[in-house]
């Protein structure tokens, strides 16, 4: 079966191409500016709306993980806009990093307008449209030119803007492990994409579920929220996202034999997470675990493992392999439910208020 008629499919498949182009521009040719990053800051505030806010949450973790000295915070564009007096203090210096696919989202544009002229605030933005209001208002910006999508649902722009931020921040911090991993990531995903399509389409075909839980910690938490949103937007399935251990403190109340739990690449820093997964699996849910070898005591016909790899130095960059998996799970679930992934219910391309 061909899925080429769907923009969403083509855009998910195109991700390693865009990542390569971003990598070439930032790392190889150094054809971009990032002088703004070189100043001293007390706090880096990262913001966006919807998917762009989700990626901000992962980006804020990466910032804190790599820099240690600077506090970083992710906020929805609207929260930052409505509470500027709370988040910006006269006695501190701020770098504000914003994400917007179209570069025209009202709240994000208004954040930049509201901080324009403040000496203690600098701004850097990521967008996919050259010449957008968003990038024009910023002190500096990076444009993921080839990630402009036709679909309403963000897929390649989500991963490409996050990829670009990781590349720029790692380069600024001189972290060669992260930069090496980004290169490996492009090759890995390019080679694995056909098998990801096959695996996820067959998995959806064989497994029924009517509630979907995505669990991920630290950098993966923002990805989990995005995975949950993709499933909602495309397939209209009730979907939820939680930190891996937080899930047991209440939300697992909804878990049952008709659920699917997607476990994003468990990191090396997790302590005895196998016990947690066992606890969830006892509630009869289906479970799909990404990126690790099979766990000895966690094997039954409800549990599947996919995309095992030890190729990466840093768990944070390995986390990117979750992205095409959750995007295709949502895509194929949508087709199975008889819906069109290119036309999500109630949504439009850019939100203007």
């Amino acid at each position, binding site marked *: 079966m061909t899925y080429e008629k769907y923009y969403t499919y083509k855009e998910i498949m195109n991700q390693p191409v865009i990542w390569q182009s971003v990598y070439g521009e930032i790392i190889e040719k150094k054809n971009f500016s990032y002088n703004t990053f070189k100043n001293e800051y007390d706090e880096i505030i990262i913001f966006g*709306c919807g998917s762009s806010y989700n990626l901000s949450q992962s980006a804020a973790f990466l910032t804190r*993980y790599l820099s240690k000295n600077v506090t970083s915070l992710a906020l929805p564009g*609207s929260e930052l806009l409505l509470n500027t007096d709370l*988040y910006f203090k006269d006695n501190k210096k701020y770098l504000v990093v914003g994400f917007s696919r179209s570069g025209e989202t009202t709240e994000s544009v208004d954040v930049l307008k509201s901080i324009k002229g403040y000496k203690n605030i600098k701004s850097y933005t990521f967008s996919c449209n050259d010449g957008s209001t968003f990038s024009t208002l910023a002190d500096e910006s990076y444009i993921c030119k080839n990630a402009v999508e036709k679909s309403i649902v963000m897929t390649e722009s989500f991963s490409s803007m996050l990829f670009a931020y990781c590349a720029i921040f790692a380069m600024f911090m001189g972290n060669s492990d992260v930069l090496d991993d980004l290169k490996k990531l492009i090759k890995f995903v390019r080679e694995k994409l056909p098998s990801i399509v096959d695996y996820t389409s067959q998995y959806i075909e064989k497994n029924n579920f009517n509630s979907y839980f995505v669990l991920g910690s630290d950098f993966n938490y923002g990805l989990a929220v995005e995975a949950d949103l993709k499933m909602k937007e495309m397939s209209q399935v009730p979907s*939820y996202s939680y930190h891996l251990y937080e899930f047991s403190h209440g939300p697992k109340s909804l878990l049952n034999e008709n659920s699917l739990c997607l476990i994003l690449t468990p990191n090396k820093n997790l302590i005895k997470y196998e016990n947690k997964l066992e606890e969830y699996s006892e509630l009869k849910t289906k479970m799909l675990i990404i990126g690790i070898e099979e766990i000895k005591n966690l094997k039954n016909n409800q549990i599947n493992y996919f995309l095992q790899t030890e190729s990466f130095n840093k768990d944070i960059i390995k986390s990117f392999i979750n992205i095409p998996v959750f995007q295709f799970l949502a895509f194929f679930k949508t087709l199975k439910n008889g819906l069109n992934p290119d036309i999500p219910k109630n949504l439009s391309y850019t939100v203007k208020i």
Partner: protein
Amino acid sequence: MVKKDYTLKEILNQTKALKAAYDDIIGKDAGADLLKKPFDELILFGCGTDYNLCQSAVFFSKSLMNDKSFQALPSSELLLNTETYINKDKKYLLVGFSRSGETTESIDILKRFKNKRNITTFIFSARENSTIVKLSDSNFISEEALEKSIAMTQAYICFLFSYCLILAKILNRNDIVGEFKDLVDFLNLNIDKLFTEISNYVNTVSFKKCFVLGSGFNYGIAVEADLKMKEMAQVESYSYHLHEFIHGPKTLIDDESLCLILTLDKRSSGSKDVLKEILGYGSKLLTIDCKDLLKVENGSIYNIISNPGFKIDMVKSFLNIPVFQILAYSKAIKNGLNPDIPRNLNYTTKLNI
């Protein structure tokens, strides 16, 4: 036969617990050593409901203090990423919340940071002799908030109230302290009426999914409201920042939805458009003290509490708490469930980590 009235008693008893906390803090100076030692960053942590209240508490802290950094984290995230969140060159105040005082991740945080020179710990719990309290440098015990129910209700409001009141008192914010006194009196006078009104409302409307929307201080309350609906009533529930909702999650809204809009504040510009859009999708709308915002005759809108007379928005936000608790309780009863025994959950979550 299993009793069904612990949860109800605890919801109705919260005014007593708040009065006891108020008397301890204002009359006996309990918690006065919260900010005693200097710090650069305040990290608030907890699990489940305790983490939800941290998200409101961090907003409150930021509103009152200019020169510090703030972060709310699930205990597990702090425990697993200590090197990312704790810098040896900075001073930290860690404030934790745990009803039982025996939650594994929260205890493990205190064990890990015991005797670290740059870290001070302060704990809120309902049990004086609990492990977490014994490990802390200082603490506030709210024994009146001790519950028999699994789902936290009065302990939640009591901890959040106590933290905010202690902070306001230490920082000499007499305006806020005064309004907290008014809040206790208001709830004491009105909680029985609220119960009657909300349970009648639940009996007259039907909904299969629930969206709770709140910004700023209210966001943590929205997440807690969503969790209560899941735990007690097994209803598909979601929580979002008010304006974030339109950036994707609104895709699930339809005529079988109930949208609970938490108290809007002076900062909530543009809210009217969001509410109109929600109504346009056929959802029911339950608002709290915003009767005047939507001056349209629409059978789908119902408002609870009008002009309660609070000047400080964050104090007024506490009115949302009994409303969503009674809403979840009443929905559970309507669905034939026992709110005292939420599915898949235990009183205290202990892990082998």
